[in-house]
C-alpha cells in the first residue's frame, strides 16, 4: 500500500451510509466530511442516533453489509482511499493503522476468552508471535494502561474486571499494534463520573505519548471541552458545524451547537434552569424537508421549511457551518 506520509492522517469526504431494511431505507449518514492530523483530537458530537457510530464503523469498514451500504464518499488514510482497497488489504489497516474502542467494554470483549488471549490474539495473527510472547506483550500493555497486578490479571476473564478496568483493557487492545489513529466511540458513557475522568486522562496521555490522531465520539459536550482540538457537530447524518474547540465555545455558528452548549449544566449559572433542546431528532426514514433541524430550531423561518441549508459555509479558515442564518446565530 502506498501511503503518502505528507497526506492528512485521516480524511473523510462526503460519506453516505444507508441501511436497507424491511421497514425502508434509513439514510444514517448523508455527506460527512472530517479531517484529522497527527496528534489532533477531533471530537464528534451529537445526540444519540445522529450517525456518529455509523460514521466510525464505516471508517473502520466493520458495518454489516447488508443491511448497511456505503453508497458514496471516500475514506482517505494517508491519501489512500480505504473504501477502494480489497478486503484483505483493508483488514491490514484495522488495528495496525486505525484502531477502535467501544462504549460498552463488557459486551465488546468476548466473554469466553481471557483478556490476555484477546490482546495477544493481535500479536499472533498480525505479527506471528508465539502464544507465550504474545502473552508477555499483553502483560506489558496492561501495565501501560495501569491495570494493577497485570501479570496475574492477564489470565482473568472480562467479567472479572470492573467497568473502568475493562475499558482500560479495551484501550490496551487498541494500542497493541501501535496504530496512528484511534477512534473512541463513547468510551466513557457507560462509566461512573470519577472513572470517566480517569479514562479520559488515560486516553489523552497515550495520545500525547504516541502522537496519535484521536477521534473522540460523544454525546456529552461537557466531556470534550478539555481534551478536544476540533469539534464536529453532527445532526441527522450530517456535520452541521466544524470548528476549533475555542471558537465553538466562544461563538457557536449553528443553532444546534448553540442549543447543545446551553444544555450543559454549568456551575456559574447555578439557579438558572437547564436549557434542554425540546423535541427529538427525526427518524432517519422520515427526515423533514428543508433543514432537518427546523422543527426544533429557535431561528427557523419559512425558508428553513422549504430549502435545505447550504451544505458547508466557510466562516473562517478551518471553520464551517451549515445553516441559512449563520450570521444571526453568530450575532454579527
Amino acid at each position: 500500500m502506498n501511503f503518502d506520509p505528507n497526506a492528512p492522517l485521516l480524511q473523510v469526504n462526503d460519506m453516505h451510509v444507508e441501511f436497507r431494511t424491511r421497514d425502508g431505507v434509513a439514510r444514517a449518514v448523508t455527506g460527512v466530511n472530517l479531517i484529522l492530523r497527527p496528534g489532533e483530537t477531533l471530537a464528534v458530537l451529537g445526540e444519540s442516533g445522529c450517525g456518529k457510530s455509523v460514521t466510525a464503523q464505516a471508517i473502520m469498514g466493520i458495518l454489516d453489509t447488508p443491511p448497511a451500504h456505503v453508497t458514496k464518499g471516500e475514506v482517505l488514510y494517508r491519501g489512500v482511499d480505504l473504501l477502494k482497497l480489497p478486503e484483505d488489504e483493508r483488514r491490514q489497516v484495522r488495528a495496525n493503522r486505525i484502531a477502535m474502542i467501544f462504549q460498552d467494554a463488557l459486551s465488546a470483549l468476548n466473554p469466553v476468552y481471557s483478556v490476555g488471549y484477546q490482546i495477544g490474539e493481535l500479536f499472533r495473527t498480525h505479527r506471528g508471535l508465539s502464544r507465550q510472547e504474545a502473552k508477555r506483550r499483553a502483560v506489558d500493555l496492561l501495565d501501560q494502561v495501569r491495570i494493577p497486578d497485570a501479570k496475574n490479571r492477564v489470565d482473568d476473564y472480562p467479567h472479572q474486571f470492573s467497568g473502568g478496568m475493562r475499558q482500560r483493557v479495551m484501550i490496551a487492545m487498541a494500542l497493541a499494534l501501535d496504530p496512528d489513529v484511534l477512534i473512541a466511540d463513547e468510551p466513557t458513557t457507560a462509566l461512573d463520573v470519577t472513572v470517566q475522568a480517569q479514562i479520559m486522562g488515560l486516553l489523552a496521555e497515550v495520545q500525547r505519548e504516541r502522537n496519535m490522531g484521536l477521534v473522540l465520539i460523544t454525546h456529552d459536550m461537557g466531556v470534550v471541552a478539555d481534551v478536544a482540538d476540533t469539534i464536529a457537530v453532527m445532526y441527522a447524518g450530517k456535520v452541521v458545524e466544524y470548528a476549533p474547540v475555542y471558537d465553538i465555545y466562544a461563538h457557536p455558528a449553528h443553532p444546534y451547537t448553540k442549543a447543545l452548549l446551553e444544555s450543559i449544566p454549568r456551575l456559574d449559572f447555578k439557579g438558572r434552569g437547564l436549557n434542554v433542546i425540546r423535541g427529538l431528532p427525526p427518524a432517519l426514514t422520515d427526515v423533514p424537508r428543508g433543514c432537518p433541524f427546523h422543527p426544533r430550531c429557535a431561528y427557523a423561518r419559512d425558508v428553513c421549511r422549504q430549502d435545505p441549508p447550504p451544505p458547508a459555509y466557510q466562516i473562517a479558515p478551518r471553520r464551517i457551518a451549515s445553516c441559512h442564518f449563520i450570521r444571526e446565530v453568530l450575532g454579527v
Partner: protein
Amino acid sequence: MSDLNAVSAVEAPGPAPTGPRHGGSPAKPRSLAGDAWLDLRSSKIFWVAVVLVAVILLMAVWPSLFTSADPRDCVLANKNAGAASGAPFGFDFQGCNVYAKTIYGARDSLIVGLFATLLAGVIGLLFGLTAGYYGGWLDAVLSRFIDVVLGVPFLLAAIVLANRFSTDPDATNIVPVILTLGLLGWTTSARVMRSAVISAKGQDYVAAARMLGASPSRQMFRHILPNSIGPFLVVLTILLGINIASESTLSYLGVGLKGDAISWGIAIAEAGPYIRTTAAPLIWPSVFLAVTVLAFIMLGDAIRDAFDPKLR
C-alpha cells in the same frame, strides 16, 4: 424419540413484549397480536399447516367421507393383495383394506392427542401460574419437581405408567394412554407459563391491579393470564403433534392403544414382520402419521415465528 425433543426445539418463546416494535414507525402503533396475524396471513407454512389440520380433522370426524370400506372387514383371501378398487393401498397380511385402516386411524390418534394435550395443558397452566405468581420457596419446590420429572426420559416413564393404567387387556386403552401422556407431558408448558407469568407480573398494569387490592386469583385470571397465554398455546399446539407421535410409539411397543382401536402405531408394528413381502401396509400409516405430526408442529412453529419479533 424426536418427540420430547421437539418440545425443547420450541426454544420456549418469550412473553409478548409490549410497546412499539423496533423499526416500526411510532406514529401508527399496531398491537402485537395484530402484527402477528398480519405476519401469519402471509406465511405459507401457516396455510399449509391449516389445510392439513383441516383435512385430518375431517378424516377423524367423518371417515366415511373418504372411504366406503369398513376397516374391520378383513378377508383373509385378500392377504397381501395389491391395489384394488376401493383399496388403493392394497391389503395387509390379514386381508384388511390398508387405505380404510389408515383413514380410520386418524380418529383415535386425534382423540388421544387432544385430550392428553388438554390434560397436560391444565396441569401445566396451574403449575406455571402458581410457581410464577407466588415465587419464593413454592416456586423452588415446584421447579425442583419439574427437574425430577424431566430426570426420567419421557418414553421410559410412559412405558412404565402406561403399563400401570391399562388394567383391562381387551379394552381399547384410550383413557390409560391419555392419562399417561397427559400426566407426563406438562413440564414444558409449565415452564413456559411460569416464565411468562414472571415477566407479566413485573408489568405496570399488574402492579396497579395489585395496588387496587385485586385478589391473587383475580390478578392471575384477569390480568396475567391473558397476557401470558400466547407462548403457552404455541407450546400446546406443538405438544398436540408430539402426543400423537407418542401415542403411536406406545401403541407400536404394545403398551398404547390395543384391542379394537385402530392406530397408525399398531399398523406399523403389525406390518413390520412382512416388509419383505409388501411394504404398503407399513409405508402408508407411516406417511399419515408423519404428516399429521408435521401439521401440528408446523402450525405451532408458524405462530411462534409470528409472535417472536426477535426472529425477523
